Protein backbone atom coordinates (compact mmCIF):
# COMPACT_ATOMS: atom_id res chain seq x y z
CA UNK A 1 0.00 0.00 0.00
CA UNK A 2 1.39 3.39 -0.94
CA UNK A 3 1.54 6.03 1.74
CA UNK A 4 1.78 8.92 -0.73
CA UNK A 5 -1.90 9.95 -0.46
CA UNK A 6 -1.45 10.14 3.31
CA UNK A 7 1.84 12.04 3.04
CA UNK A 8 0.49 14.57 0.55
CA UNK A 9 -2.74 15.02 2.53
CA UNK A 10 -0.80 15.61 5.73
CA UNK A 11 1.58 17.95 3.89
CA UNK A 12 -1.31 20.04 2.53
CA UNK A 13 -3.17 20.46 5.82
CA UNK A 14 0.11 21.32 7.57
CA UNK A 15 1.34 23.78 4.94
CA UNK A 16 -1.80 25.86 4.40
CA UNK A 17 -2.08 27.11 8.03
CA UNK A 18 1.64 27.92 7.94
CA UNK A 19 1.30 29.81 4.67
CA UNK A 20 -1.88 31.91 4.94
CA UNK A 21 -0.83 34.27 7.77
CA UNK A 22 2.60 34.73 6.21
CA UNK A 23 0.90 36.04 3.08
CA UNK A 24 -1.98 38.02 4.56
CA UNK A 25 -0.93 39.31 8.01
CA UNK A 26 0.87 42.65 7.97
CA UNK A 27 1.67 44.01 11.40
CA UNK A 28 1.30 47.71 10.66
CA UNK A 29 -2.28 47.24 9.47
CA UNK A 30 -3.48 45.53 12.63
CA UNK A 31 -5.18 47.19 15.58
CA UNK A 32 -2.94 47.77 18.59
CA UNK A 33 -4.58 45.19 20.82
CA UNK A 34 -4.31 42.48 18.18
CA UNK A 35 -0.65 43.33 17.68
CA UNK A 36 -0.13 43.02 21.42
CA UNK A 37 -1.94 39.67 21.37
CA UNK A 38 0.35 38.42 18.60
CA UNK A 39 3.41 39.71 20.45
CA UNK A 40 2.39 37.58 23.45
CA UNK A 41 2.15 34.39 21.38
CA UNK A 42 5.85 33.42 21.57
CA UNK A 43 5.89 33.26 25.37
CA UNK A 44 2.46 31.65 25.52
CA UNK A 45 3.55 29.06 22.97
CA UNK A 46 6.77 28.31 24.84
CA UNK A 47 4.84 27.71 28.06
CA UNK A 48 2.48 25.37 26.25
CA UNK A 49 5.28 23.53 24.45
CA UNK A 50 7.21 22.88 27.67
CA UNK A 51 4.28 21.95 29.96
CA UNK A 52 3.17 19.26 30.24
CA UNK A 53 5.03 17.61 27.30
CA UNK A 54 8.41 17.92 29.01
CA UNK A 55 7.09 16.13 32.06
CA UNK A 56 5.86 13.23 29.94
CA UNK A 57 9.05 12.92 27.83
CA UNK A 58 9.74 9.56 29.49
CA UNK A 59 6.44 7.86 30.15
CA UNK A 60 5.65 7.42 33.81
CA UNK A 61 8.81 9.19 35.01
CA UNK A 62 7.47 12.62 35.82
CA UNK A 63 9.87 13.34 38.71
CA UNK A 64 12.86 12.44 36.55
CA UNK A 65 11.61 14.64 33.71
CA UNK A 66 10.81 17.51 36.09
CA UNK A 67 14.33 17.46 37.55
CA UNK A 68 15.76 17.42 34.05
CA UNK A 69 13.65 20.46 33.08
CA UNK A 70 14.84 22.18 36.27
CA UNK A 71 18.46 21.49 35.28
CA UNK A 72 17.81 23.11 31.91
CA UNK A 73 16.16 26.10 33.61
CA UNK A 74 19.02 26.68 36.03
CA UNK A 75 21.74 26.40 33.38
CA UNK A 76 19.78 28.68 31.02
CA UNK A 77 19.71 31.30 33.78
CA UNK A 78 23.50 31.50 33.67
CA UNK A 79 24.19 31.03 29.95
CA UNK A 80 22.74 32.53 26.78
CA UNK A 81 24.12 29.63 24.72
CA UNK A 82 21.13 27.41 23.88
CA UNK A 83 23.31 24.31 23.69
CA UNK A 84 24.00 24.52 27.43
CA UNK A 85 20.40 23.94 28.66
CA UNK A 86 19.93 21.37 25.89
CA UNK A 87 22.94 19.40 27.10
CA UNK A 88 21.88 19.87 30.72
CA UNK A 89 18.43 18.44 29.98
CA UNK A 90 19.75 15.39 28.13
CA UNK A 91 22.65 14.58 30.45
CA UNK A 92 20.76 15.16 33.71
CA UNK A 93 17.99 12.85 32.56
CA UNK A 94 20.47 10.13 31.63
CA UNK A 95 22.48 10.58 34.82
CA UNK A 96 19.49 10.74 37.16
CA UNK A 97 17.86 7.72 35.53
CA UNK A 98 20.54 5.60 37.23
CA UNK A 99 19.75 7.07 40.65
CA UNK A 100 15.96 7.48 40.63
Amino acid at each position, binding site marked *: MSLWPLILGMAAVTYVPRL*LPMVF*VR*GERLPRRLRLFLAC*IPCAALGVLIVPGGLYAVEGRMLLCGLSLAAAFIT*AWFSRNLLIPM*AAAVLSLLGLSYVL
Partner: protein
Amino acid sequence: MRDFCVGLRRGLPVLLGYFPVALAFGMIAGNAQVPLMHAAGMSAFVYAGASQFMALNLLIAGLPTAEIVLATLLLNFRHFLMSAALSARMKRVGKLAPLVAFGITDETFAVAATEPTAPTPTFLLGLEAAAYVGWLSGTALGHALGGVLPRILQGALGMGLYGLFIGILVPEVRRSWRAAAVAAVSAGIHWLLRHFAVMPPGWSIIAAIVAGAAFGVILGEAKPPAVGRGTAG
Protein backbone atom coordinates in the same frame (compact mmCIF):
# COMPACT_ATOMS: atom_id res chain seq x y z
CA MET B 1 23.49 36.44 2.30
CA ARG B 2 24.88 37.65 5.61
CA ASP B 3 21.44 37.28 7.16
CA PHE B 4 21.22 33.74 5.80
CA CYS B 5 24.49 32.78 7.50
CA VAL B 6 23.44 34.35 10.80
CA GLY B 7 20.22 32.35 10.50
CA LEU B 8 22.15 29.16 9.84
CA ARG B 9 24.18 29.74 13.00
CA ARG B 10 21.05 30.40 15.07
CA GLY B 11 19.63 27.20 13.62
CA LEU B 12 22.49 25.03 14.84
CA PRO B 13 20.89 24.21 18.24
CA VAL B 14 17.66 23.32 16.43
CA LEU B 15 19.57 21.07 14.02
CA LEU B 16 21.26 19.30 16.92
CA GLY B 17 17.96 18.98 18.76
CA TYR B 18 16.10 17.66 15.73
CA PHE B 19 18.66 15.11 14.62
CA PRO B 20 18.19 12.51 17.39
CA VAL B 21 14.41 12.92 17.43
CA ALA B 22 14.29 12.40 13.66
CA LEU B 23 16.63 9.44 14.13
CA ALA B 24 14.02 7.89 16.43
CA PHE B 25 11.29 8.70 13.90
CA GLY B 26 13.24 6.94 11.13
CA MET B 27 13.78 3.90 13.34
CA ILE B 28 10.13 3.63 14.38
CA ALA B 29 9.03 4.04 10.75
CA GLY B 30 11.40 1.29 9.70
CA ASN B 31 10.12 -1.00 12.43
CA ALA B 32 6.55 -0.32 11.24
CA GLN B 33 7.56 -1.50 7.72
CA VAL B 34 7.26 2.01 6.29
CA PRO B 35 9.70 2.16 3.33
CA LEU B 36 12.59 4.65 3.41
CA MET B 37 11.13 6.80 0.63
CA HIS B 38 7.86 7.18 2.50
CA ALA B 39 9.49 7.98 5.83
CA ALA B 40 11.85 10.48 4.21
CA GLY B 41 8.99 11.85 2.09
CA MET B 42 6.94 12.48 5.21
CA SER B 43 9.84 14.32 6.85
CA ALA B 44 10.52 16.27 3.65
CA PHE B 45 6.95 17.32 2.81
CA VAL B 46 4.99 17.28 6.06
CA TYR B 47 7.94 18.37 8.19
CA ALA B 48 6.15 18.50 11.53
CA GLY B 49 7.60 16.17 14.12
CA ALA B 50 4.80 15.49 16.58
CA SER B 51 2.27 14.88 13.82
CA GLN B 52 4.63 12.45 12.08
CA PHE B 53 5.00 10.34 15.23
CA MET B 54 1.23 10.48 15.67
CA ALA B 55 0.66 9.42 12.06
CA LEU B 56 2.88 6.36 12.57
CA ASN B 57 0.93 5.39 15.68
CA LEU B 58 -2.40 5.80 13.90
CA LEU B 59 -1.12 3.87 10.86
CA ILE B 60 -0.05 1.01 13.10
CA ALA B 61 -3.48 1.17 14.77
CA GLY B 62 -5.00 0.83 11.30
CA LEU B 63 -6.84 4.15 11.00
CA PRO B 64 -7.97 5.29 7.54
CA THR B 65 -6.02 8.00 5.70
CA ALA B 66 -8.74 10.66 5.98
CA GLU B 67 -8.82 10.38 9.76
CA ILE B 68 -5.05 10.68 10.07
CA VAL B 69 -5.09 13.75 7.82
CA LEU B 70 -7.82 15.35 9.92
CA ALA B 71 -5.91 14.65 13.14
CA THR B 72 -2.82 16.19 11.51
CA LEU B 73 -4.75 19.35 10.64
CA LEU B 74 -5.85 19.76 14.26
CA LEU B 75 -2.44 19.05 15.75
CA ASN B 76 -0.55 21.35 13.37
CA PHE B 77 -3.02 24.23 13.35
CA ARG B 78 -0.98 25.91 16.11
CA HIS B 79 1.46 26.93 13.37
CA PHE B 80 -1.28 29.26 12.11
CA LEU B 81 -0.91 31.32 15.28
CA MET B 82 2.88 31.17 15.10
CA SER B 83 2.97 32.18 11.45
CA ALA B 84 0.64 35.11 12.20
CA ALA B 85 2.78 36.25 15.14
CA LEU B 86 5.96 36.03 13.08
CA SER B 87 4.44 37.71 10.06
CA ALA B 88 3.10 40.60 12.15
CA ARG B 89 6.62 41.26 13.38
CA MET B 90 8.26 41.31 9.95
CA LYS B 91 8.27 44.34 7.71
CA ARG B 92 7.83 42.51 4.40
CA VAL B 93 8.08 38.87 3.56
CA GLY B 94 7.64 39.26 -0.19
CA LYS B 95 8.37 36.53 -2.70
CA LEU B 96 10.05 34.31 -0.13
CA ALA B 97 6.79 33.91 1.85
CA PRO B 98 5.89 30.43 0.48
CA LEU B 99 9.33 29.09 1.38
CA VAL B 100 9.63 30.85 4.73
CA ALA B 101 6.14 29.64 5.70
CA PHE B 102 7.02 26.01 4.94
CA GLY B 103 9.86 26.05 7.45
CA ILE B 104 7.84 27.31 10.41
CA THR B 105 8.00 24.80 13.24
CA ASP B 106 7.67 25.19 17.01
CA GLU B 107 11.44 25.43 17.31
CA THR B 108 12.26 27.73 14.38
CA PHE B 109 9.37 29.96 15.45
CA ALA B 110 10.61 30.12 19.03
CA VAL B 111 14.11 31.08 17.91
CA ALA B 112 12.96 33.63 15.31
CA ALA B 113 10.25 35.25 17.43
CA THR B 114 12.63 35.94 20.31
CA GLU B 115 15.36 37.51 18.17
CA PRO B 116 16.02 41.02 19.53
CA THR B 117 15.30 42.62 16.15
CA ALA B 118 12.57 41.74 13.65
CA PRO B 119 13.81 38.77 11.58
CA THR B 120 14.28 39.17 7.83
CA PRO B 121 13.10 36.55 5.31
CA THR B 122 16.67 35.53 4.47
CA PHE B 123 17.52 35.13 8.16
CA LEU B 124 14.50 32.86 8.53
CA LEU B 125 15.51 30.82 5.50
CA GLY B 126 18.95 30.19 7.00
CA LEU B 127 17.48 29.23 10.35
CA GLU B 128 14.95 26.95 8.69
CA ALA B 129 17.52 25.39 6.36
CA ALA B 130 19.64 24.28 9.31
CA ALA B 131 16.62 22.80 11.07
CA TYR B 132 15.45 21.05 7.89
CA VAL B 133 18.85 19.43 7.34
CA GLY B 134 18.76 18.04 10.87
CA TRP B 135 15.26 16.64 10.50
CA LEU B 136 15.78 15.08 7.08
CA SER B 137 19.23 13.60 7.69
CA GLY B 138 18.11 12.19 11.03
CA THR B 139 15.10 10.50 9.46
CA ALA B 140 17.13 8.88 6.68
CA LEU B 141 19.92 7.74 8.98
CA GLY B 142 17.52 6.37 11.57
CA HIS B 143 15.72 4.37 8.93
CA ALA B 144 18.99 3.05 7.51
CA LEU B 145 20.34 2.08 10.94
CA GLY B 146 17.12 0.46 12.09
CA GLY B 147 16.86 -1.01 15.55
CA VAL B 148 15.28 0.45 18.65
CA LEU B 149 16.56 3.11 21.03
CA PRO B 150 16.25 2.19 24.71
CA ARG B 151 13.27 4.02 26.19
CA ILE B 152 15.37 6.16 28.54
CA LEU B 153 17.81 7.13 25.78
CA GLN B 154 15.01 8.14 23.43
CA GLY B 155 13.40 10.16 26.21
CA ALA B 156 16.71 11.82 27.06
CA LEU B 157 17.43 12.78 23.45
CA GLY B 158 13.90 14.13 23.07
CA MET B 159 14.53 16.13 26.22
CA GLY B 160 17.07 18.16 24.23
CA LEU B 161 14.27 20.06 22.51
CA TYR B 162 12.66 20.89 25.87
CA GLY B 163 16.05 22.20 26.94
CA LEU B 164 16.01 24.33 23.80
CA PHE B 165 12.56 25.77 24.60
CA ILE B 166 13.62 26.50 28.17
CA GLY B 167 16.82 28.13 26.94
CA ILE B 168 14.75 30.43 24.72
CA LEU B 169 12.13 31.18 27.39
CA VAL B 170 14.42 31.95 30.33
CA PRO B 171 15.90 35.21 28.94
CA GLU B 172 12.35 36.42 28.16
CA VAL B 173 11.23 35.59 31.68
CA ARG B 174 14.23 37.39 33.15
CA ARG B 175 13.55 40.50 31.11
CA SER B 176 9.87 40.91 31.87
CA TRP B 177 7.56 39.65 34.57
CA ARG B 178 4.70 39.89 32.08
CA ALA B 179 6.44 37.37 29.83
CA ALA B 180 6.84 35.07 32.81
CA ALA B 181 3.16 35.47 33.73
CA VAL B 182 2.02 34.77 30.16
CA ALA B 183 4.17 31.63 29.91
CA ALA B 184 3.09 30.40 33.35
CA VAL B 185 -0.62 30.96 32.73
CA SER B 186 -0.61 29.29 29.31
CA ALA B 187 1.47 26.39 30.65
CA GLY B 188 -0.93 25.94 33.59
CA ILE B 189 -4.01 26.05 31.37
CA HIS B 190 -2.45 23.59 28.95
CA TRP B 191 -1.60 21.19 31.76
CA LEU B 192 -5.16 21.31 33.09
CA LEU B 193 -6.69 20.84 29.64
CA ARG B 194 -4.44 17.87 28.94
CA HIS B 195 -4.77 16.34 32.40
CA PHE B 196 -8.54 16.32 32.29
CA ALA B 197 -8.56 15.50 28.54
CA VAL B 198 -11.11 18.24 28.00
CA MET B 199 -10.54 18.29 24.23
CA PRO B 200 -8.26 16.73 21.60
CA PRO B 201 -4.55 17.62 22.09
CA GLY B 202 -4.47 19.92 19.03
CA TRP B 203 -7.33 22.03 20.40
CA SER B 204 -5.76 22.11 23.88
CA ILE B 205 -2.55 23.61 22.47
CA ILE B 206 -4.40 26.30 20.55
CA ALA B 207 -6.78 27.12 23.41
CA ALA B 208 -3.93 27.43 25.90
CA ILE B 209 -1.85 29.67 23.60
CA VAL B 210 -4.84 31.91 22.87
CA ALA B 211 -5.76 32.12 26.57
CA GLY B 212 -2.17 32.91 27.58
CA ALA B 213 -1.76 35.59 24.92
CA ALA B 214 -5.15 37.11 25.81
CA PHE B 215 -3.98 37.23 29.41
CA GLY B 216 -0.91 39.09 28.14
CA VAL B 217 -3.16 41.67 26.47
CA ILE B 218 -4.96 42.26 29.78
CA LEU B 219 -1.65 42.62 31.61
CA GLY B 220 0.25 44.71 29.19
CA GLU B 221 -1.77 47.58 27.80
CA ALA B 222 1.05 49.98 28.69
CA LYS B 223 3.86 48.26 26.83
CA PRO B 224 4.05 44.96 24.98
CA PRO B 225 5.43 42.23 27.22
CA ALA B 226 8.41 40.14 26.28
CA VAL B 227 9.39 40.03 22.67
CA GLY B 228 6.95 42.69 21.58
CA ARG B 229 9.62 45.38 21.73
CA GLY B 230 11.07 46.04 18.32
CA THR B 231 7.76 45.18 16.70
CA ALA B 232 7.49 47.28 13.58
CA GLY B 233 4.71 49.76 12.98
